[in-house]
Every structure is written in structure tokens, then in C-alpha cells.
């Protein structure tokens, strides 16, 4: 309940940044999200990035949060999810920039075109009962460790299924089925909790 209020609170602050360019609201968002963004990529358990690269990513993500806040719609996504998508695109951008070869430039398609969350490019999706982010975090914590482990490797370390399989010394099929089991489990948890 405490967390629930907080969750809505971040969305409200984001709306304020979007509509009034409210700097005080933005600073509060920064103090909350910057350490989480960094921890997502660089912490004791996750070292997808070096500390320096994680700091650079934080700067870029929060800069985009400021710029894009005008398009944040609390009815479509929670603040956490919205910031997650910005962070993911930003990370793809960064990795792509570092590995890009001269001759690969000159293509018009950008990261935000492919990982495009804007409502204009999407078919209309009937909104389900909006789940609170707290339910999702709780659902994730309720997964068997081997299932949450593969999800964390996929999202936080940015690894593909085959990279995870190789790293854990598991057959690819095992990783795939752990992911599917985790999704199935989350879906039941979420739909149960989503009901009024």
C-alpha cells in the first residue's frame, strides 16, 4: 500500500515534468531512478557494464527522460515500465555505437524506430486492468530461482537465450523452457492479482 502510493507518485512526478518542465519533480525522479538504473547494470550481482559505462548510461537515460516526458501517458504504462523502455533503447544505442563500423552508417532506421513504444505506430490494444508494479516485482520474487535467474540474465545482462545457455552450460531448449515457465507463472500471478 505504501509502495502502491509511491508507484503512482513517480508517475505523477513524470507527468509534472512533461507538462510543466518541473525541475524539482525531475530532481526527485533522478534521486530515485538514477541509482536503480545504475544498479540494474552494475551491482554485486550484475556486471553488464563497467561502473563508468553505467554512470554514462544513467546520464543519457535521465536526459532522455527529461526530453521525452511530454509523451509519457500514465494510462498506458507505469513510470517504471516507461523508464525501462527508454533505458533499454538507450543501452542498445550505446552498444551499437561502440560496435558500429564506418560502412554501416547511412541507414535511416534508428533504435527508436525498431523499439518503438509510441501509440501512433501501434495497433489498438484493449487495456487490461492496470497492474501495479508492486505485483510484478512480487511475482518476480515468487519465481523459482532458476527461472528468475534466466530472466535477470536476459534483461539485466542483456544476454540472448543462446548466450545464457552457453554461460550456464545448459542446452538451449532448457533455457527456453525456463523462460516460458517463468512467463506462464507470472501470467497466472498477475491475472489473479489484477482481478478486482
Amino acid at each position, binding site marked *: 500500500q505504501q509502495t502502491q502510493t509511491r508507484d503512482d507518485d513517480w508517475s505523477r512526478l513524470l507527468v509534472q515534468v512533461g507538462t510543466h518542465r518541473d525541475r524539482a519533480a525531475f530532481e526527485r525522479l533522478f534521486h530515485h531512478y538514477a*541509482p536503480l538504473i545504475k544498479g540494474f547494470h552494475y551491482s554485486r550481482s550484475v556486471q553488464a557494464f563497467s561502473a563508468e559505462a553505467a554512470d554514462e548510461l*544513467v546520464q543519457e537515460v535521465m536526459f532522455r527522460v527529461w*526530453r521525452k516526458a511530454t509523451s509519457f501517458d500514465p494510462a498506458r504504462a507505469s513510470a*517504471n515500465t516507461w523508464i525501462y523502455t527508454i533505458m533499454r533503447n538507450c543501452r*542498445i544505442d550505446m552498444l551499437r555505437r561502440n560496435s558500429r563500423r564506418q560502412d554501416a552508417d*547511412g541507414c535511416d532506421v534508428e533504435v527508436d524506430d525498431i523499439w518503438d513504444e509510441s501509440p501512433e505506430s*501501434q495497433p489498438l490494444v484493449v487495456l487490461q486492468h492496470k497492474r501495479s508494479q508492486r505485483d510484478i516485482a512480487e511475482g518476480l520474487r515468487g519465481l523459482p530461482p532458476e527461472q528468475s535467474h534466466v530472466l535477470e540474465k536476459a534483461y539485466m545482462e542483456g544476454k540472448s537465450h543462446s548466450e545464457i545457455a552457453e554461460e550456464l552450460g545448459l542446452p538451449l531448449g532448457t533455457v527456453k523452457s525456463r523462460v516460458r515457465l517463468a512467463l506462464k507463472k507470472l501470467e497466472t500471478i498477475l491475472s489473479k492479482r489484477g482481478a478486482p
Partner: protein
Amino acid sequence: MIRHHPDSNMLLEYASGSLPWAMSLAVSAHLQLCPHCRRASEQLNEIGGGLLEDSAPQATSGAALAQLMERIDQEPQQGEPQHADSPAGEGAPVSRRNTRDDRDPALARLPQVIRKLLGGNRPLKWRRVSPALKMSRLHTGQDQYEVAFHRISRGGKVAEHDHRGREVTLVLYGSFSDADGVYSPGDFLLREPGEVHRPIATQDQECLCLSVVEAPVSVTGPLGWLVNPLLSFRPA
């Protein structure tokens, strides 16, 4: 109606950002056509949001916020500026115009991401692969996958063939069939290397597909694909 979708593993790789660029392009185009997968991908984003919320906070440097505010102050005023190189509104730049492509009915209603891709590849150069099949390779800024439009003429039969790498096909216009079924706009098919098939376009109209094929490891240089055709046709 769309009957063939990317599986949940591929959608998760897309949502977590590890799916290769060219494959993501095809998934993205499918999402722009398929409400079912769009909803699934929003759920997968929510998992990302949940993991973000739950991650172990790490202190950033004390000057981080001040640096950021300084950068924001240097930003020209007004909400969200557009990218300098992509004009507002429709994704496709209009500079490289080509009236033949503009009149092409198969290209008239494409998902936004494909329009953007098309914009950078105009004018399309079609190459005849066989009497019924034409292809146009698309530059996507990467070289691990070959991305191309394939079009099969009305009722045309493509020779039986296999592929050397994983292949994704997304139907964009018209429909085709093979031994496994009929595929219509929006359908997303994944074939593993070695699978053999023989596509046939339906009689009423030609068929346009986007295909993404994993390039063989031997392709290295930017022009490697010129000497390394991916399709291996069997003698009829």
C-alpha cells in the same frame, strides 16, 4: 487474420534488447500489425520495469545531477526536439523520391518501421531470381543478416529451396502458401536452416514479403553478400 506469430522466447529477447537488429526489425513490423503480440510485448516491458524497481540501488557520483542539469540547460527550449536527420511526422525522408515505388500497390500500406527502412533504400532495385520471384536487398546498417523484400508474381511458383541460416519471413502484401499452410499479411514465419519449402503465391494477387536471413559466418566484408548468395536453389 494473423495466424503465425514470433514465439514468446523471441518476444522476450526483443523486449530485453538482445535480439539482433535485423530480427528485431521483423519483430517490430509484426508488432505494428498484431495487437496480440503487442500486448504480450507490453507485459514483457512490465517485467523489465519490475526488475528495474527491484534492482539493488548503486550510488551515482555526487556531481551527476548537476552535470545533467547543465546539459539540460544547454538544450534548446521546447519540449522534445526531433532528431536532426528525421523530419517530424512520417518516418520516411522524402528526399530520395521515386515515383515508381510510390505507385507500387504492394508498398502502399506498410508498417511504419518498414516505411522508414524503405525510405533509406529508395529507389528499390529489383533483381529477377527466377521467372516468378524478384528480390530487392535492403541496407539496414548491419551485415550479420541479409534483409530483403521478396515478391512472388500472381500465382507464381518459387523453386524448391532451402536456406543456409535461420530465416524469418513476414508477409506484407498478398499471400502465399507452401506445404504447411497459407500465409497472409502480418504472418511471421521462422524457418531453421535446412528446412526445404516451395512457396506459391495465391492466384488473385502478387505477394510481397520481408525476409531476414542469418548470413553464413564466412560473410565478412561489406560486399561479402555479393559473392555469397544465400539462397541455394535445387535443380528443378
